């Protein structure tokens, strides 16, 4: 963000500065008597006017998100605007041209022919400026979307490998098979849970975000299946804020973190433990907290097993929300590990 702002100002200042210098040099060569000081002042002020106007124009473009428009729609807005601005620049510099004695006869400045020629020049200037500005942003955006796509593909691959890990599926199937004799009703429910998870995992790659309730359903299905497997060793608690349903979340993200908590926390404990999923809504932000019994080892994040799930999650959050989302995993106390993500309500499109 800071870098982009800096780049913008560097380009603006050097651009208009070279415009002023070019004017001066050109004038100096085309006049035998050289350039008078008042001319230099005038050109500098003209450059400053152009800098100011284009900066206001840029703020206006950002405010109305013209960069998100299709090219034809953008053109129908940009062209009239720069025409108006071109004329505005012409009149803005009139007082200075009179002040510095550039125009000796005052009424020449208001001659319709002069207005048209003068304004046209500035309109062309603004057009070139817009060309640079919009092209830069389109290319940047295209690069970003390419990067995004590449990362999404990588994430999908990792998902295929990790998120619905085969260990979970086969263990679930194994428990279900034992349950068929013991409790046929429960085993049918378990098949429903598993098929729901599998169906979601197949369609998931097609959507970038999913409704919070849908994700919550996956988490519940997942926890039901793991409860069958771990029995009394797994206790689950859900504490969901009623406004959570207003949010969209990246699919399978909460499920992954819950699975991590069970895999690296509870399944390692002989006595088992508790997994607690809590959501909070605060100022258009959704805070999701997952607590699991266990202890995070130093460097476990980079470990052989713990790495990919967490790395994926951080990568996805970064891609979807930039700096607007946050993630952390810490030992809350000696017995619990806290995994927390905070996401904004809307995707930041700017």
């Amino acid at each position: 963000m800071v870098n982009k702002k800096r780049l913008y100002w560097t380009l603006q200042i050097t651009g208009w500065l070279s415009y002023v210098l070019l004017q001066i040099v050109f004038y100096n060569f085309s006049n035998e008597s050289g350039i008078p000081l008042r001319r230099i002042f005038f050109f500098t002020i003209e450059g400053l006017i152009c800098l100011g106007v284009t900066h206001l124009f840029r703020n206006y473009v950002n405010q109305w998100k013209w960069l998100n428009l299709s090219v034809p729609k953008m053109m129908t807005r940009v062209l009239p605007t720069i025409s108006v601005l071109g004329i505005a620049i012409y009149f803005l510099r009139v007082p200075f041209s009179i002040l510095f004695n550039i125009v000796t006869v005052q009424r020449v400045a208001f001659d319709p022919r002069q207005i048209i020629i003068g304004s046209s020049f500035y309109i062309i200037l603004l057009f070139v400026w817009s060309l640079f500005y919009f092209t830069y942003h389109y290319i940047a955006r295209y690069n970003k979307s390419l990067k995004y796509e590449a990362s999404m593909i990588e994430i999908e691959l990792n998902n295929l490998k990790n998120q619905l890990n085969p260990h979970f599926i086969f263990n679930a199937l194994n428990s279900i098979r034992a349950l068929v004799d013991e409790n046929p009703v429960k085993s049918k429910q378990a098949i429903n849970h598993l098929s729901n998870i599998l169906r979601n995992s197949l369609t998931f790659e097609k959507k970038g975000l999913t409704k919070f309730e849908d994700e919550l359903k996956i988490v519940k299905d997942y926890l039901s299946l793991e409860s069958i497997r771990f029995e009394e060793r797994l206790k689950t608690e859900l504490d969901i804020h009623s406004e959570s349903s207003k949010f969209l979340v990246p699919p399978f993200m909460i499920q992954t973190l819950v699975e991590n908590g069970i895999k690296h926390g509870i399944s390692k404990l002989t006595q088992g433990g508790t997994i607690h999923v809590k959501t909070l809504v605060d100022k258009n932000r959704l805070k999701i907290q997952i607590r699991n019994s266990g202890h995070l080892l130093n460097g476990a994040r980079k470990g052989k097993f713990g790495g990919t799930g967490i790395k994926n999650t951080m990568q996805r959050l970064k891609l979807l929300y930039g700096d607007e989302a946050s993630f952390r995993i810490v030992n809350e106390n000696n017995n619990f590990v806290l995994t927390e993500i905070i996401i904004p309500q809307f995707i930041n499109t700017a």
Partner: protein
Amino acid sequence: MKALIVDDERLARKELMKLLEEHPSIEIVGEAMNAEEAIQMVNELNPDLLFLDIQMPGKTGFQLLEELDAVPFVVFTTAYDEFALKAFEVNALDYLLKPIQADRLSETVSKILDKEKSKSAAIRSADKKLGLNDQVFVKDGDRCWFVSLNNVRMFESDGNYIKVYFDSNRPMIHKSLNALDEKLDERAFFRASRKHIINLSWVESIEQWFNGGLMVKLKGGDKVEVSRRQAAKFKDMMSL
């Protein structure tokens, strides 16, 4: 054949027991839900066969095996653990993937019964000492072996570790040679010196050595010095 099932999941144990009902030659003597329980039950019940899950809370299946002196036949049961199973040499182990299929289980059971038959000819030492027919589990880094003591030429102490010589491998196990010596059957293994225990069935030739000691040459070429203190005892044993 006495079998012990080791798995942290009750339903998984139940399912396996149900499948094993079809195999009356396998008698299930116990179920353990973690490694600690399993070690205790192995020592008490002395099973011939372990059905062993790899991923368990507390200690893993591998850690369990490392803590056992003599290791019974082992069939690993796992949902998906390519990584762990790759540690073994091909054909060196039996494993069943969960959900376990009846056909695969039958194959495995008959394979185990065959192995058992060829083994039962030898007499099991009553005092539970490790004889030539017993196997041990050896893990060195990422590699694992089930080694029949028959194939072990000698043990060599190396700091806090013992080097186990078999085939072309010399993996290290974390044990003291004295502790091992006490567990080995003295009719099969001999404490040649402070540093070595040799397998008597591998002895090829014996020469006189300095200071009244002996130099023993093993099949395969390894040479081991027998200290003077042990030489008399050794001569006794070899001459019957």
